[in-house]
């Protein structure tokens, strides 16, 4: 397990640093953003994004934080990292011919599978939590105060969302020995989903609706996870993972 964790350490550090820098930059800009919100809103072309500005006007700093850190930062960078971690997981072993030496050792298939799955998931989720937990510290510099508990819940929801991208990509990696093909397919899917999100009449069909500003503001206000969305995301993590495990176990006796 340590070897698996070590193999992704540098990418995870880079991912954390990127999230943290984006967060610091965004939070440092909050006072000017709040002052100029009306003017900025008039520049926003799409109704869906104007809706986001309305949320920020109504809820203030938590909504801005949700938009910048979760919707913009973690969804884009985290989504990319989720695909990167998962697309190479098994497919790369097949592509570069190391599957034999990986599987020939006397280690159970279940252990090999879950070590790889969990190490990727761990590095995917940990930077989200660490950067989110640094928010109170950074917010202090701009005279804002945020409670820890809603942040923990928001980070949990965001993590679940990222895992719901990670798990299906991992499943594809167990099926298809072409990691770049998998990455490209996921990129196209993400672009399609983002396009849906930005179109007013169909925005509700977008996957990104499960982790947008509205969801995080609700978590912040109610101090609880949205049950329906959480169940959907859990299913989108568990089902592909079980299918991937089945597929992986079937690779060899």
């Amino acid at each position, binding site marked *: 397990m340590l*070897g698996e964790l070590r193999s992704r350490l540098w990418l995870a550090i880079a991912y954390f640093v990127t999230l943290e820098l984006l967060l610091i930059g965004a939070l440092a800009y909050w006072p000017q953003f709040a002052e100029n919100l009306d003017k900025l809103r008039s520049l926003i072309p799409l109704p869906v994004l104007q809706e986001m500005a309305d949320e920020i006007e109504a809820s203030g700093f938590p909504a801005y934080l949700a938009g910048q850190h979760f919707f913009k930062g973690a969804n884009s960078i985290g989504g990319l990292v989720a695909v990167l971690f998962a697309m190479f997981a098994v497919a790369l072993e097949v592509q*570069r*011919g*190391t599957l*034999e*030496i990986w*599987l*020939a*050792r*006397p*280690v*159970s*298939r279940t252990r090999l599978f879950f070590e790889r799955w969990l190490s990727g998931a761990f590095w995917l989720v940990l930077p989200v939590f660490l950067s989110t937990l640094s928010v109170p510290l950074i917010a202090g510099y701009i005279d804002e105060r945020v409670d820890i508990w809603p942040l923990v819940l928001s980070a949990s929801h965001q993590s679940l969302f990222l895992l719901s991208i990670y798990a299906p990509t991992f499943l594809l990696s167990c099926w298809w020995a072409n990691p770049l093909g998998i990455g490209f397919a996921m990129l196209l899917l993400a672009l399609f989903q983002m396009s849906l999100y930005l179109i007013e009449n169909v925005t509700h069909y977008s996957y990104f609706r499960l982790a947008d500003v509205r969801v995080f503001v609700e978590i912040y206000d109610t101090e609880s996870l949205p049950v329906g969305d959480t169940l959907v995301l859990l299913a989108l993590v568990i089902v592909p993972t079980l299918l991937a495990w089945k597929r992986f176990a079937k690779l*060899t*006796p």
Partner: protein
Amino acid sequence: MARGLRRRFGTKEALAGVDLELGPGGVIGLLGPNGSGKSTLLRILTGLTRADAGEVEIDGVKLEGDGLGVRQRLSYAPGEIALYGELSGAAMLEFLLRGRTAGALSRGRELCARLGLPLERRVRGWSHGMKRQLLFAAAMAPAVRVRILDEPTEGLDPRKRGEVLAILGEDARLGTTILLSSHHLGETERVCERIVFLHQGRKISDESRSSVLERARRVLRVQFASVPEAVLLESLSGVQRVRIEGTRASLELGSADPRVTLAALGQASALPAPIAIEHGSLSLTDLFREFYGVEAC
């Protein structure tokens, strides 16, 4: 032990019902031309490829249902060389020996030292032969009953090849069963007690080295001045079968003593004059070509 192994890849039948008894102890040579099913057989035995039919049992443990149990009882050096280039030799060895007993790693390091492998350097900068030796060392390190080695000497210089074969021989003397797939037929002749020959997914021969060598002595090869007539050669005393390639003829004899046939050959005035005669010096390549009409590799 393998029984009735079958494996098909699309329309090609890679294995068509192969039985193989492994052990007890010694080196078993696995030979066959490219595409004969050797690597598929080895992969099935190690649980890396699923057989369409048949069963594998190592030391009383069945592969289907207890793959882990089988992998604990055997070690494997793959023929394809693919390692994690970013790892050092030491880390790569540790990776390969994961799941083995504590003694395996120190034994692996000893073997690598004996083979002169620079374990502190990244594998990416190693030569093909060095990588091959690392896989060999990792397969020889654990204390297991069966070792499966797919072309462990391929790409090695003669000195390293000798060292690898020496390690292999030492291990076999301790009672380990080694299934060795090799394209170096000379070394197979040297180290293997038993030779299994695969052709088109079928086992066409499984005999002891002494029996193979005995058969080799039953072949007389004669180079004539011009193309001989098969009928005349078949009528020679002691000859059972004749194969003619140009001016060269291979005569399969009824016994290992060629004297009767040689005498008859001397008296057969209708045949062209013999230029060269070879007896008892067949390599395995020659032998399999003579007996089965197929190239051994």
